[in-house]
């Protein structure tokens, strides 16, 4: 095979070379179509990979003009003439290196090479099959846009551009890996974004050294700072409106083909805890659901361990009525309560995993089986006590209320660590563990942005953290992301408290 940059003078030699590169007769998807260009009396070879190009645009914008064109008037080189006078495609590029032909073809473009020319033309005809724009799967809202990203980078970018009409919105294409076959589109708004951040993200992406990169979820693991940490440092969202909102605050959005989502860097803990709905709902309602979610995080994190700690070490904290009723229901349960909790938690995690993996045709059965096993049967068989069903159910429910998948996993896994300390050292253990957790999180950074900013370290900000002010008071962009252009608009007059 070998690499060769220069084109051969003879068309056939070029064809042979490309055939060799793509193992042509063997690889039936690699197509070569010859056309005779009557206007300039020249043979033309058209190369494409079937399945990657849109046949209609190939026929109407390349083949038909090549055949139909009767006369040309240009005096430039043949390639230039063809590019300027014959092809009616929106996007044509001249290629001077034979190796680039390979990359262009692999990206779904069509390449034409004219006889006796030492350059080719690459024409954008990419046409993959993909879903239409559908509703988001995991980030649902009741009020607000219902579009979500699909597995096409082109459509995803268009969904974002639909939200932001700004001449400074930049899309940079970065190629990744040794073969340069994967393209990551980096979007940001010039003038808002910090240039250091852009350089840093670019550097991270350039450092990736793999054969192929299948999507943003893989990309996320390549560019994150602490691969072994439970704490996520990159936001994965499937909502174009959220991505657009982040762009306008000076964040960077990364988009790839084949991923129905985008990545947002850098992020803070608040991004994992906020949802788009918080802003679409009116001030009081949005804050109410935020408070519910904040509660959910703590419930999901602490309830099982608190239950164990209190019942095993600090009985005096429970009202007498409750102590007696728990003791009565536990009377016939053979296991210590920590074993009970572990059994139930395992059952719940099983149910959760099974619910995702189960073929959707038999999906409804999981609810029935789960509810029966977890709820009634286990209690009736005296394997666990009824109060424990409540503890585990409320924990499960709360973990579903955490909006971000990565953050939800973070909380779910930490729960077991808390359980361990709660069961060995009681409330003291939980308090110690919580202290360590908060200390750890406060030192974590996502692309140099502290995880708890702007609360710790404290910055002047729009105060959009645990609760948010009314929208018209949020006139500052987050400093910690970018120090450029920090004001969204002028300070609101009148009854502003800022």
């Amino acid at each position, binding site marked *: 095979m070998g690499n060769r940059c220069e084109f051969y003078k003879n068309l056939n030699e070029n064809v042979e070379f490309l055939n060799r590169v793509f193992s042509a007769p063997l690889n039936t998807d690699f197509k070569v179509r010859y056309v005779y260009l009557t206007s300039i009396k020249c043979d033309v070879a058209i190369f494409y990979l079937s399945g990657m190009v849109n046949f209609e645009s190939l026929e109407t914008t390349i083949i038909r003009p090549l055949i139909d064109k009767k006369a040309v008037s240009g005096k430039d080189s043949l390639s230039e003439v063809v590019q300027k006078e014959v092809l009616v495609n929106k996007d044509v590029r001249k290629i001077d290196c034979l190796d680039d032909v390979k990359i262009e073809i692999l990206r779904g473009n069509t390449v034409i090479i004219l006889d006796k020319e030492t350059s080719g033309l690459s024409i954008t005809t990419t046409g993959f099959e993909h879903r239409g724009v559908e509703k988001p799967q995991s980030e649902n809202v009741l009020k607000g846009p219902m579009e979500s990203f699909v597995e096409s980078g082109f459509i995803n970018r268009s969904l974002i551009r639909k939200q932001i009409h700004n001449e400074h919105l930049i899309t940079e294409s970065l190629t990744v890996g040794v073969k340069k076959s994967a393209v990551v589109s980096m979007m940001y708004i010039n003038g808002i974004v910090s240039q250091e951040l852009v350089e840093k993200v670019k550097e991270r992406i350039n450092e990736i050294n793999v054969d192929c990169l299948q999507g943003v979820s893989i990309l996320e693991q390549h560019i994150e700072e602490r691969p072994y940490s439970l704490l996520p440092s990159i936001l994965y969202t499937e909502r174009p409106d959220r991505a657009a909102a982040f762009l306008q605050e000076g964040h960077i959005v990364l988009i790839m083909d084949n991923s129905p989502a985008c990545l947002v860097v850098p992020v803070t803990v608040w991004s994992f805890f906020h949802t788009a709905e918080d802003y679409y709902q009116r001030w009081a309602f949005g804050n109410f659901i935020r408070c519910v979610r904040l509660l959910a995080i703590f419930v999901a994190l602490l309830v099982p361990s608190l239950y164990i700690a209190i019942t*095993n070490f600090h*009985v005096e904290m429970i009202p*007498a009525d409750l*102590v*007696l009723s728990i003791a009565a229901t536990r*009377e016939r349960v053979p296991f210590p309560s920590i074993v009970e909790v572990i059994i139930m938690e395992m059952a719940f995690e099983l149910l959760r995993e099974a619910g995702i993996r189960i073929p959707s045709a038999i999906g409804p059965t999981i609810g029935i089986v789960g509810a029966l096993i977890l709820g009634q049967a286990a209690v009736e068989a005296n394997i666990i006590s009824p109060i424990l069903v409540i503890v585990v159910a409320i924990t499960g429910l709360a973990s579903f209320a955490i909006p971000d998948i990565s953050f939800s996993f973070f909380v779910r896994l930490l729960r077991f660590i808390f359980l361990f300390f709660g069961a*060995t*050292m009681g409330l003291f*253990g939980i308090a110690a563990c919580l202290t360590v957790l908060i200390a750890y999180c406060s030192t974590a950074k996502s692309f140099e942005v502290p995880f708890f900013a702007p609360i710790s370290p404290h910055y002047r900000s729009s105060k959009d953290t645990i609760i948010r002010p009314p929208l018209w008071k949020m006139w500052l962009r987050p400093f910690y992301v970018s120090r450029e252009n920090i004001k969204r608009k002028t300070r609101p007059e009148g009854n502003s408290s800022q």
Partner: protein
Amino acid sequence: MKKSLLVIHIIVLVFMAGCWDRNELDELAYVIAIGIDAIEEDGFVVTYQIANPEEAGEDDVASEIISIHAPDFLSARDLVVAFVTREVVFTHTKVLIVSEAFARRDEFLNFMKPAIRERQLSRKINLIVSKERASDFIRNNKPTLETRPHKFFELMTDRWENTGLVPDSTLHSLFHRMEEDSGVFLATYSSTVQVEGGREGKEDDHIPGEVNIQGGNPTQTIGSAVIKEGKMIASLTGEETRFSLLLRPEKGIEKMIATYPDPLEEKYRITARLLAEEGSQVHVNTKNRAPTIHVKVPVKLEILSIESNIDYVEDLEKQHLLKNHIKTLIEDKLNTFIKRTQEEFRAEPFRWSLRARRTFLTNKQFEEYRWMDNYSFAEIHIEVDIELKEFGKQLAPTDMKQVKGD
């Protein structure tokens, strides 16, 4: 390798540091009430009422009551192992019941002292002095509305404090008073044995056992036991208890219902609800050896019933008369009671010492003043400030002639 060793060490450390005082809920026996009796020789009988966690069904008993000889009421815990297979804990103990006979003995306070040190015992536990033996009290007490004994004691202490018939007598305040050494402590006074025939009297002029009731739980809790310097010296009726709470500078009672003779027709009575929305205003002058105390008691009255059908509502003159009448009645009663505290107890249950203490620069000066001794010579002026608040839903009394159809 080094890292994993570190992790193993930390885990082992956690296990070694913790776990050992872990107990499952169902492996414990919860003592709800502790009773203490003195017996003639050198010893005590400690009674534990232990809650039965199983729902009280047909055959189940809600609690188990165990009495045992022991040197003190905490060490009895290990002795009961002979009867109880579970570890006995005091985490949910609600009341400590002491027999009157024991409370009147000198060693009473010393015997109570372990209660401060014991971690499991909450300071919120109520102290009850029972007229009979504490073990009998616990055995006789059979709440009918509550299935579980702790519920009875919980509601009891909450409810009775509202009406002012019994004082707030937590262990915490007992030790507080005893340390202060400047007044008497009022403990809840109770009995399960009804005195034969009862005693005629107005609604609150009773000590336990004297209230004439039929049916229900035999437990009667009204009035208080006066504990001076760690020893019970006397008892107060329900009415006297109310007075002592009313005269305290901090707000004690919320509301209580009392009856007063009608000023115009002696044979009828007027029922009123007394609202003490703020505490009494107490001014103490300690310049002289004998202190002068001015007390202003703001009271709001809600008239609930007027038996005599006299129109006190619309006739303002009569209303004024009624007001003054009740004012003098209450003031008279208060003065008699204060006299009793000065002469009989030689100490006050009103917590006026808190106000007296303010008049000194240092606590030492206050201690040197010896408030308790000087109190008996104090000159006390009581003024009751009555405000008639409302007369219920009906204004003018019903015209009885119309009702009877004459």
